[in-house]
């Protein structure tokens, strides 16, 4: 009983329950064989690409900000890599550096605008989203005369960023897992994590307590834009080409994953394990539907339902956590 209530008070609880619910639904209603679904490449690959962006977006949201420019930074990252190293034939390292520097620059612009103006970050990053879409399209048409560019990456780059492990799983899965551990460590174990929670709770008090809130905000925006361009870069290396379009889905997908994962939209609360399970849940709903008898078109309805249920659960578990008095429950059960 105590263990159960301790579980429900954890911010990741709702996302784990959502995941179990989705799996149960797919098994019972959809006739899915769990053994087939378990580590199927389709959803794992999908989750990895999504998860690498969801992690920094989750941190930003905990700090009370949001970044939707990631939708443009994915194609920007892959186009930068492909134009520099594919079209112009420069070494792949230069193309990769180009993609990442672009991420850093756009993140810097987002961050500076967020701390210098009182414009909400949703609007700021909407501006950079649309702006970067224009930049990417114009640059690729002007420079290459094409909206799609081919790229052949050398062996080492393929191995690190774009090969299939066992012929099925993208290597970015490893990056995703490593980044999850890293982000989890920073958010939950270091003082910087505490700063992020404090900023999301009350930015003015956080600044008065001596936290460099401006620097932290800028850094978080740089992280999210760079992670998005990193995913784009990996995709270009993986698929030997880059397109101007695509990436817009990521805006919606990351926000749903992060919110299902228990991050409070208004900031101040959330966990990395929660974001991880939120991403997995989203990926399984989205890709696992192909393993069921259910028509693919229902997937969005399921995502909508999962989102609402998860948010409702988060809400009630949060109340439970707020009004939990450890002394009392501990005495009630002698475990």
């Amino acid at each position, binding site marked *: 009983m105590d263990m159960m209530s301790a579980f429900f008070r954890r911010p990741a609880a709702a996302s784990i329950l959502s995941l179990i619910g989705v799996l149960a639904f797919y098994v019972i209603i959809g006739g899915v064989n769990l053994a087939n679904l378990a580590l199927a490449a389709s959803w794992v690959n999908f989750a990895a690409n999504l998860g690498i962006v969801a992690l920094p977006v989750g941190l930003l949201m905990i700090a009370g900000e949001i970044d939707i420019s990631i939708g443009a930074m994915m194609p920007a990252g892959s186009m930068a890599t492909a134009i520099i190293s594919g079209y112009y034939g420069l070494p792949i390292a230069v193309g990769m550096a180009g993609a990442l520097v672009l991420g850093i620059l756009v993140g810097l612009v987002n961050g500076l605008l967020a701390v210098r103006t009182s414009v909400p970050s949703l609007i700021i990053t909407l501006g950079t989203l649309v702006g970067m879409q224009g930049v990417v399209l114009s640059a690729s048409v002007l420079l290459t005369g094409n909206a799609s560019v081919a790229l052949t990456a050398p062996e080492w780059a393929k191995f690190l960023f774009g090969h299939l492990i066992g012929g099925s799983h993208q290597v970015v899965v490893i990056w995703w897992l490593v980044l999850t551990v890293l982000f989890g460590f920073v958010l939950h*174990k*270091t*003082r910087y*994590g*505490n*700063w992020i*929670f*404090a900023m999301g*709770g*009350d930015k003015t*008090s*956080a*600044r*008065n*307590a*001596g*936290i460099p809130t401006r620097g932290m905000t800028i850094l978080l925006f740089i992280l999210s834009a760079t992670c998005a361009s990193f995913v784009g870069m990996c995709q270009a290396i993986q698929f030997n080409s880059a397109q101007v379009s695509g990436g817009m889905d990521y805006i919606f997908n990351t926000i749903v994953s992060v919110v299902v994962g228990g991050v*409070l939209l208004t900031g*101040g*609360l959330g966990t990395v394990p929660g974001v991880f399970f939120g991403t997995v849940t989203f990926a399984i709903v989205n890709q696992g539907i192909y393993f069921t008898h259910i028509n693919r078109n229902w997937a969005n309805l399921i995502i909508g339902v999962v989102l609402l249920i998860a948010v409702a659960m988060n809400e009630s578990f*949060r109340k439970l*956590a*707020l*009004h*939990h*008095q*450890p*002394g009392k429950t501990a005495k009630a059960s002698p475990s």
Partner: protein
Amino acid sequence: MTDEAPVLELRNVDKSFGPIDVLQEISLKVRSGEVLCLLGDNGAGKSTLIKTLAGVHPPTRGEILMDGKPVQFSGPKDAGDRGIATVHQFGGTFPLMSIGRSFFVGVEPTKGWGPFKVFDRKLANEIAVKAVQSFGITRIDDGDRLVGGLSGGERQSLAIARAVHFGARVLILDEPTAALGVKQASHVLRIVLEAKRRGLAVIFITHQVMHAMAVGDHFAVLIRGALAASFRKGEKTREEITDLMAGGEAMAGLEATLETYMQSHEGHPPPSA
């Protein structure tokens, strides 16, 4: 003792926001181990006054002195570093953080080395819990509890304990008892007295004369941005203070309206509501 320079002093401080004069010619002193109660009606300028003291607003004219030396705060952080701590009505501002984490925001204790320095949760919880308990709030015994789950009085106590722990010399409390029940309020008042006993200078803002009289050594009444009265404990009765706070003018105004009403209604008092 009284020869000692006051910890914090205001000399002829004015504060205007553009054309609006909110504070006029305010002179105040707080000494260590003393509670100064700041009384005044809504809109009298109490919050503006303490924001000026806490470095949020620079004074338009006049001087702020600490330990007898003129100071200029560059911001709330600067004032905080010099030992001026403000506790707001709802205490902790991070309701979704644990007691231990919120206690150490910005000054987290860490253990380990280099890039592996981790936040020392156990130590943070221990120190935070000990600090609140030393103020007599023994019901708080788990640093992992969320601040938002504490009662209003406990939250105030936690915020005060935090300020004292980090070496505050002046404690500014903006209506700490306003939203509290009788029992919770008496907790907070006891903590105010404990802070005073530990040698802090306390500025206590309240609407409730009873609460002021329970802890105050010095009283200052603000009316429309000016210091209407300043007196020591025992110099005035509760009724006199209430009267002052309501603003002699307001009362006079009320009487005047009543009188005109009586005249225009041939001496009948207005029907009581």
